[in-house]
């Protein structure tokens, strides 16, 4: 009886340790959605942002492999990395866009003033 209890306990611990973590479906779809968002937000047009889109995609791919290998905990962390890269890509794209627009607006003012001083 005592030995039997110990065996069950051992089996359940092993199960928890090996396949205990659930498949991170939510983290996967969140990371994929962030990559899409970054691409729509113009991240592919800016080299720095494009690099982070690539990093995010590579890590999503890695996470998918880790999931199929049963490394769900590892996959979750990889997806967190992917999501961070995708969010950064979008932030960089927005920054570059705002800077471009600011430069253009400043140029327009310069042109107008020059025109006026003629």
């Amino acid at each position, binding site marked *: 009886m005592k030995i039997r209890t110990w065996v069950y306990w051992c089996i359940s611990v092993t199960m928890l340790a090996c396949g205990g973590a659930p498949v991170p479906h939510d983290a996967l779809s969140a990371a994929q959605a962030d990559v899409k968002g970054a691409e729509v937000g113009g991240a592919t047009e800016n080299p720095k942002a494009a690099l982070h889109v690539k990093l995010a995609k590579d890590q999503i791919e890695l996470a998918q492999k880790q999931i199929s290998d049963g490394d769900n905990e590892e996959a979750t962390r990889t997806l967190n990395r992917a999501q961070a890269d995708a969010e950064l890509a979008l932030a*960089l794209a927005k*920054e570059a866009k705002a800077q471009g627009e*600011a430069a253009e607006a400043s140029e327009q003012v310069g042109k107008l003033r020059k025109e006026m001083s003629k």
Partner: protein
Amino acid sequence: MMRLSTRFVNGCVSGLYAARPALIAASLGLFVMACGGAAVPPQELLDARSAYAEAAKGPAADLAPAQLDTAKQSLDGAQKSFDDDGASQKTKDLAYVAQRSAEIAAAEGGREKAERLRAASDKDFKNAQVQGLENFQKTKQALAAEKVARAEAERKAAIAMSSLAEIAKVKEESRGVVITLSGSVLFATGKSDLLPIAQDKLNQVAKALTDQGFKAIVVQGYTDSVGSATDNDRLSLKRAQSVRDYLVTRGVPSEKATAEGKGANNPVADNKTPDGRAENRRVEIVVTPEK
């Protein structure tokens, strides 16, 4: 383990028996690092720290404080993981995310700054447009006012000339506008005092001159050829001076008006006939126009 380490150190020390103490110290240092790996932060954490420090120095501190705070929490989480578990994969992953979080804060600060600059430029642009329009309207108004003023001046001048034409002969010559007044309406024979009727006429001349404006006038007196040249010269000068002085009393600037006696020179008619002589007895006012 302990015994092994001691043997390793002993081995090193005996092997480098003749080596300099610095080399021994370096070997010991390496050994300490290898054994106490937990004390060395992973590259990811170092990168996260410097990314956060960079972001905190930039515009994010003022313009994206919320995201910067998120980055700080993320970095603190990675640091805690390192303190608890050392340079584990979890620590590295957290530090990786923390670094991105700091970079996101920096990018948001940069975006906010650029958006503010853009808003300021847009405002400048609008102000410049308004100013440009104002300048344009001012210029237009000034041009219109100038046109009106010029038309008014021309009208006044035309009136002055036509009123003058009623009492005197007005002719444009290369030396200027010449106003010729007949001597008989101005002076009694042989005299240089103005007749009362002459004053009315000269009042009109003075008005026309002051209305129109001029650079200078020369009042020239002429006689007919009767009598001596000396007498004629003297009389013509005195008459010219009378006219000039009177015009000055009527508002013609004294520094712009001079008088000359021309005697019987430059006759405009035949001195052999009485009519011709009457025509030659005259006062000419030569007006040099402005500009």
